[in-house]
């Protein structure tokens, strides 16, 4: 029997940096010394507490043998059994929490080089995001330019809860570089924690922190649209990764209504935000924070109003779905195929070829 996700492109998989030694080996002497002299143990993010049930699904393991800590473990746990065609790696090592731009660049480079050498070079099914020092767009562009020639990097990853909304002018050089190189802008859940995760301060519980992520994505979407990023960069696409899915329609209705009311404030926006989203925004389909019943899922898909928006994603090793229900019940076979294969290929310029750009040498 064919596997339900055979041939799918998984747009959100997280490689785990097993220890700082994995990164220092890709650093210059200066930064390696810095790490040793200053006693830097690790930059892990509070957004994914190591032992939280949401962070690690059952069976992933712990410690050095975690299935998400090396390419062969990922292959064994996910790619082989599900017969996936490709998977895009989004490394969540907390480069974005670092306040020193130079240090952030050093760690971003090390993460990218580690991903390239120990993941991309070891499994031809893997693709990756370019991790950048988000607080310093100039340095981010430098890192994009360094890696863009390697076609296995298919997008630039930015964290949703950075210091500033990503539509703002300071980030336009990043968007320009992405557009120039056929890279997608991937905005991933998480925070720099340089300010509160909600507009009303810091919540008490981790559950609220994670719940707040979808609210942060509302803000990022509003920013990208209102600032005119897609007017300035018409070929650019942004993928909202691990944003949840169901928040989108209600916010879009609201944003479109406000646009009709106050569009004289943003006169460069000459069409409804709903249309801009159809052309430029995609969302990964896990977590699918949807209703319980398949019938309600169908109703929700009607609300979403487009079959082009969702991209297949497991969010491995995060524990979002039970068993292997990577896609929820309630989707037609044709829609499942679109989400698994056609939509990702249509979204990522570097995955557009029918062979998915597999086996492309850097």
């Amino acid at each position, binding site marked *: 029997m064919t596997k339900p996700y055979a041939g799918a492109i998984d747009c959100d998989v997280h490689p785990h940096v097993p220890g700082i030694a994995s990164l220092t080996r890709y650093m210059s002497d200066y930064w390696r010394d810095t790490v040793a002299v200053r006693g830097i143990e690790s930059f892990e993010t509070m957004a994914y507490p190591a032992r939280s049930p949401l962070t690690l699904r059952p069976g992933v393991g712990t410690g050095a043998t975690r299935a998400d800590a090396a390419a062969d473990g990922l292959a064994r746990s996910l790619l082989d059994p599900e017969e996936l065609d490709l998977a895009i790696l989004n490394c969540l090592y907390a480069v974005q929490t670092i306040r020193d731009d130079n240090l952030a660049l050093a760690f971003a480079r090390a993460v990218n080089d580690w991903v390239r050498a120990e993941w991309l070079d070891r499994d031809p099914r893997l693709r990756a995001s370019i991790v950048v020092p988000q607080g310093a767009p100039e340095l981010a562009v430098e890192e994009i330019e360094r890696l863009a020639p390697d076609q296995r990097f298919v997008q630039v990853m930015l964290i949703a809860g*950075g210091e500033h909304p990503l539509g703002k002018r300071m980030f336009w050089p990043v968007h320009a570089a992405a557009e120039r190189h056929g890279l997608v802008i991937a905005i991933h859940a998480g925070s720099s924690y340089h300010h509160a995760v909600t*507009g009303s301060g810091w919540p*008490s519980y981790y559950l609220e922190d994670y719940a707040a992520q979808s609210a942060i994505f509302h803000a990022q979407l509003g920013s990208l649209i209102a600032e005119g990023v897609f007017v300035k960069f018409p070929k650019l696409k942004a993928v909202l990764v691990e944003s949840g899915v169901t*928040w989108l329609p209600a916010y879009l209705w609201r944003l479109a209504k406000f646009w009709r009311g106050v569009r004289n404030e943003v006169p460069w926006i000459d069409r409804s935000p709903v249309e801009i989203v159809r052309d430029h925004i995609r969302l990964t389909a896990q977590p699918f924070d949807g209703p319980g019943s398949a019938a309600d899922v169908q109703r929700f898909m009607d609300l979403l109003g487009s079959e082009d928006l969702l991209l297949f994603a497991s969010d491995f090793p995060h524990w979002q779905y039970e068993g292997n229900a990577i896609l929820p019940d309630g989707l037609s076979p044709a829609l499942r195929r679109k989400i698994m294969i056609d939509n990702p290929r249509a979204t990522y310029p570097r995955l557009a070829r029918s062979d998915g750009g597999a086996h492309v040498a850097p």
Partner: protein
Amino acid sequence: MSPLDAPATIDAPAARSGPRRLQATGLAYIDGDIHPAVKSMTDLKPYLPRAWWDTLETYGIRRRHGSATVEPYPKAAPLACRRDAWPDDGRPGSDLALMQEQHLDHYGIAHGILGPLGPTGQGELNLDLSAALCRATNDWQRDAFTRREKRLKGGLVVPYEDGRASAEEIERCGADLDFGQVFMLTRSQEPLGNRRYWPIYEAAASFNLPIGIHVFGTSGHPTTGAGWPSYYIEEGAGHSTSCQTVVTSLVIEGVFERFPGLKVVMIEGGFAWLPMLAWRLDKLFERLRSEVPHLKRRPSEYIREHIWVTTQPMEEPDDRRDLFQVIDWIGVDRLLFASDYPHWDFDDPFRAFPAGMDKTALRRICEENGKGVFRL
């Protein structure tokens, strides 16, 4: 003319002279969001101890944003108000006769629930001044509106960053049935489920007063978890996320376990986001319940029992059936009509709802649901 040049003055009588429009619907509306205003700050002077008036005159209002005059995001219209709602003197919302003629009588409003907005003392940094201004606002509101117009019910403003002082103000005014709700704002210094705010909820529940939580406020934090946006359109559209923060916090921090009689009304954030938030929280609760053992039920159950949402500004999907679907998911008994009079994004009672809306549902939302919420 550049698209950013707006007329500097308002010709209110001319704006008001447009043709009378629309058929009456025959509904006796309960309007969950009407904004009364002072003509000027001196309206509050008789209600404020001399020392506080002097402080105010000398140092002004000080909130958690830098601007002493305009809002950080300038509005879509002067004072964010309808051009035809300006009385001959003073601000929109300050002239009871005009409010009666233009809104209450014209639309057949049976009850209007007031929500006084700044300067009311809410969000003022000096907590003693905050409390004094809230007291003054409540006393002024009674004299200027609710004593003179029995259709109107006051919004009891509290200096919410000081839980104890807020509870004292509720104790002082809560027995007066002229108040229909305790009035707070979404953007607080900490999420509103935080226990520093619990004295407010305890006091409100003891008087069977609902907590009306209206969008806006100055928290001192960037308005979003993504940082400060640039534009009013972002801040306006983003209010629904502030509402989600509030609902999430009240539920997850256990406020409804602690105060099982508490009713909360979310005001001016729209409503279509609510079922999706409930799904999201249920899913997270299933995975992370070990972190929140104080919760005995799924988040959606607390929401269904304790949260009401007002309808304005009503979401407008391309296909109106999408809106009916959302209302069905929320539960028609949890929606309360609101107009936001006299603000520019006012929802007209006669035309805010899409055609084809179920008549029974309309009646419940517009004239019945509010009765059980606002002590009517």
